[in-house]
């Protein structure tokens, strides 16, 4: 420990760098990161290495995996290649997940920050709105939105974003309420910082850790949502996705287990990747919890 008159190592330890180092030591986080990298490579590099059109009928319907070299993971009820589907089904899912995650975080942080910072009437109004959106059964509402409006992946992303932000808003608000009472906020004000500076430059950076964790988890949830909608046949019909594959294979599940199992497993791996990264980040940001 340092003393006033004793020399100490003058090497700054940035909290962010500390967290990153802790993240690298968390097996969950690293495993998740590896999973995500694999999924991304599979989705974005895969099409160049395996150029089969997922919509094209290439073999007899409902061929089991391993029966033909043309379709190593088997074919679906129309005779389309499952592996090609897996490779092409990821990009829409990832896009919707990230876009919906972005919308969620943006709305959530804005609502939560204003509610928690200004409190009083602003808080009251914003929290009523949040509460209202929390009351809506998210998937049903998203279903309604995508049926009322012409289905496209943008609408799907928007629908998911609209129903998921309240959690982030509540979290942000709680963090703002907690941090705004800390003395360094008063200190910033007493040296002449404006409200906007205090909100975005002082409180937000300190609230970021749990928000980043929650953002990671939110992307996972958004992916599950997208999969659910596609499974129900409510996604963009022109875009191939894993959820769509499961929905299509569902009728034939007892004849062709592979048609639902593989795409589901891909979704699972992707969401698992995000969950594990979230776990790892959580550990990295809360060293106290890690030591317990």
């Amino acid at each position, binding site marked *: 420990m340092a003393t006033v008159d004793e020399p100490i190592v003058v090497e700054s330890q940035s909290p962010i760098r500390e967290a990153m180092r802790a993240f690298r030591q968390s097996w969950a986080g690293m495993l998740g990161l590896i999973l995500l990298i694999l999924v991304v490579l599979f989705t974005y590099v895969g099409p160049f290495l395996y150029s089969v059109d997922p919509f094209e009928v290439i073999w007899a319907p409902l061929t089991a995996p391993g029966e033909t070299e043309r379709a190593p993971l088997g074919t679906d009820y129309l005779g389309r290649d499952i592996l090609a589907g897996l490779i092409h089904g990821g990009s829409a899912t990832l896009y919707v997940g990230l876009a919906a995650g972005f919308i969620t975080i943006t709305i959530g942080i804005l609502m939560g920050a204003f509610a928690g910072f200004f409190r009083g009437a602003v808080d009251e109004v914003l929290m009523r709105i949040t509460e209202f959106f*929390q009351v809506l059964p998210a998937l*049903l509402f998203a279903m*309604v939105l995508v049926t009322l409006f012409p289905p496209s992946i943008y609408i799907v992303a928007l629908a998911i974003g609209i129903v998921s932000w309240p959690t982030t808003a509540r979290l942000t608000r709680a963090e703002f309420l907690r941090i705004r009472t800390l003395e360094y906020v008063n200190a910033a004000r007493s040296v002449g910082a404006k409200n906007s500076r205090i909100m975005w430059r002082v409180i937000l950076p300190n609230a970021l850790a749990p928000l980043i964790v929650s953002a990671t988890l939110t992307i996972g949830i958004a992916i599950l949502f997208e999969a*659910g909608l596609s499974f129900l046949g409510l996604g963009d019909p022109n875009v191939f996705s894993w959820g769509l594959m499961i929905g299509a294979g569902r009728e034939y599940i007892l004849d062709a287990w592979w048609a639902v*199992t593989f795409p589901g497993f891909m979704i*699972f791996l992707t969401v698992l990747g995000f969950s594990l990264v979230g776990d790892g980040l959580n550990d990295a940001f809360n060293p106290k919890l890690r030591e317990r």
Partner: protein
Amino acid sequence: MNMAWMVVRRLFHAFVLVLAVLVLNFLLIHLAPGDPADVIAGEMGGATEEMLADIRKTYGLDKPIYVQLGVYLERALQGDLGQSFFYNAPVLDLVAGRAGATILLVVTALLFAIAVGTLLGVLASHKPKGIVSGLVTLVSVVGYSAPIFWTGLMLVILFAWVIPIFPIANMFDITKDTGFFGFILDVLHHLVLPALTLGIVYLAQYARLTRASMLEILGSDYIRTARAKGVAETKVYTHHALRNAILPVVTIAGLQFGSIVSGAVLVETVFSWPGLGTLAFESILARDYPTVLGILFFSSVLVIIANLITDLVYRIVDPRIRTGG
């Protein structure tokens, strides 16, 4: 602050939320592309010009928007959620007919998830670095990450193909006639897989939450006090810690009710469980908007009620809220 006044305030609050959901429904009808009358009638309902004219008249669609809203709210509050053209029945009747199945499914899954999840969480908190703890963490991450309909389908494969012991579709077997108790048993038998599927996801979350919350509480001063007065270790867990650790579980269970209803939509679809979820799915495919919006409304009300109950339960479990006001 007294309890009765609090309940009245909460009820008022809930009522405002119900109104808000109705307003949202109304807005959706008007924001959707196309003629609101079409939306109200349902595109596929085979609505004739006459019918559309009729709808325009009843809902005052030629009048200013706020008048229309007034009419809509008035009708909705009287229980008139419109007419389903696909099923050719009042939406309210349709929804009411299917609600029971959904509630049965959701409540069963929730109770299962809370009971088993809490238990696992407590076990895991005992040795935070032990095997049980690791397993619980693993199971909860896996349960959380698997798409619920996929979990359901995997269970279908398992129990229809590998070990066929549970029925994989519907709520009861219409071919059997076994009397009242036989019917109940049959329903329970059918309930196992859907409830399990829905339960697993939430179980994972409750186990995780309980573990975290137990770990925090086990480090607190009053647990040290309990140990210092000679309380046995088991009782420290069951009596002193759990009672406090359950509080966040109650909160989350309440907040999540909405997402559980959503989850039920997917599970019902997988297992052809005749609840609101399948109804919603069918009516969406049929573009039967009145039914879809009716279900959205009804499910929201369900969530509002669940939140209300959570709030009251929380007040009973936590004395700080009860008397703090």
